């Protein structure tokens, strides 16, 4: 197990391995998206209360889940990069930031669009999830900003790792403080998921879409990591072989 892990951590092996897997992953991901979209937009019946407007759930919720998941992945790979100085985990952390920010952005915009028919406003300050999501976006922007501001990229990666760890300690605190704020104000308590039980025919497309989003993240992560790896190792022999097209990694 350890040996496998170690081999995977070596740049040429990772590059070769990820290159082989990417087409398959892409195929599965596209299939999941097609099935999930069909299930969400056609197969699932309209909600009793929210009618057809609930169908936004199939992009909003997977994006929101992924926005948090990506941050956790980022913080963990940042910690690994800080402690063991594994190059690959540093690259994975850096590659995660922008895709995580994209997911957060999607969750925010779709949540806001969903809010209009549900609550009657484009932005509801009473919704804790939306507020947490907004603050998460700021955390992502801070990380991207810090990385681009520090010229020495090795230092920048270290700084970003520290910041991601500080952020991961703060995210639960931020989330609960926002919830605390809203329990006091008794804002609209129409929560999107608190409906007693979600119909199976509505749930299955949601899970498929969540899986599709997760695979999408893995694909983008691999692509970005490969780019970063190739550029960092541009002077090494294995990169030369790839560029010259001899194929011997």
């Amino acid at each position: 197990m350890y040996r496998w892990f170690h081999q995977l951590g070596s740049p040429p092996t990772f590059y070769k391995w990820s290159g082989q897997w990417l087409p398959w992953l892409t195929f599965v991901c596209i299939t999941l998206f097609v099935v999930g979209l069909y299930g969400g937009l056609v197969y699932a019946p309209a909600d009793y209360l929210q009618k057809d407007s609930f169908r936004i759930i199939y992009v909003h919720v997977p994006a929101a889940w992924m926005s948090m998941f990506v941050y956790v992945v980022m913080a963990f790979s940042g910690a690994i990069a800080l402690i063991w100085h594994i190059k690959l985990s540093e690259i994975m952390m850096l590659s995660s930031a922008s895709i995580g920010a994209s997911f957060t952005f999607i969750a925010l915009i779709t949540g806001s669009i969903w809010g209009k028919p549900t609550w009657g406003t484009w932005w509801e300050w009473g919704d804790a999830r939306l507020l947490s999501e907004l603050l998460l976006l700021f955390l992502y922007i801070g990380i991207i900003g810090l990385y681009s501001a520090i010229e020495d990229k090795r230092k920048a990666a270290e700084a970003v790792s520290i910041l991601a760890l500080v952020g991961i300690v703060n995210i639960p605190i931020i989330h609960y403080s926002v919830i605390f704020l809203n329990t006091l104000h008794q804002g609209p308590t129409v929560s999107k998921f608190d409906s007693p039980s979600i119909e199976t025919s509505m749930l299955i497309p949601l899970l498929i879409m969540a899986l599709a989003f997760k695979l999408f993240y893995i694909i983008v992560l691999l692509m970005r990591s490969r780019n970063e790896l190739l550029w960092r190792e541009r002077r090494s022999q294995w990169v030369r072989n790839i560029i010259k097209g001899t194929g011997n990694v």
Partner: protein
Amino acid sequence: MNIFITILKRDLLLAIRHRAELLNPMLFFVLVIVLFQLGMRAKPAVLVTLAPAIVWIAALLSALLSLDHMFRSDMEDGALEQMIISTQPTSLLVLAKILAHWIITGLPVTLIAPILGLMLGLTGDASLILFFTLLIGTPILSAIGSIGVALTVGLRRGSVLLSILVLPLYVPVLIFASQTVNTFMAGYPIFASLSVLMAMLVLSLSLSPWASSAALRMSVS
């Protein structure tokens, strides 16, 4: 422990010598509050409900404004490098820096806040509660802020970035502190939210020196 007292004394002496550094955050604090009131012209009944948030946002901004000084001058004259290389633990140094920053900026703000609270129409008791939230809350601002400054101290355009890094982390303090005062004014018990604020203080004072010293080592090396 020696390095702690030495740095604290040195920073305080420097602040007393440059009196502007000592007065600016406080003046800024008062000005922001005055500007708020001039801009809103709110009715007294409305103003009272807004007062805790206004005072706290002003405190937040004045802490943010003065954060940049925390390590910059030491960085420029090379003192910081010396301190980090020395055998003393860096986290202790950071803790001294945080305390010094709080005494120079947070404490004066805390002390004049009750007067401003009264001016904004708070009752005497509510002003006192506001004072307590600031007393517990402003050290958290210095502690969390130290991480942001340590990360950006080597950068030329660090101060804009600093506010983007630090302000989202300030959100829980702002919420719990201003809600404590609001809850008190509504006549409910405030023990719970005050203890959450205390917990945040303990957490931030014990964790942020580690993060800051790691960040400082990165910035200086």
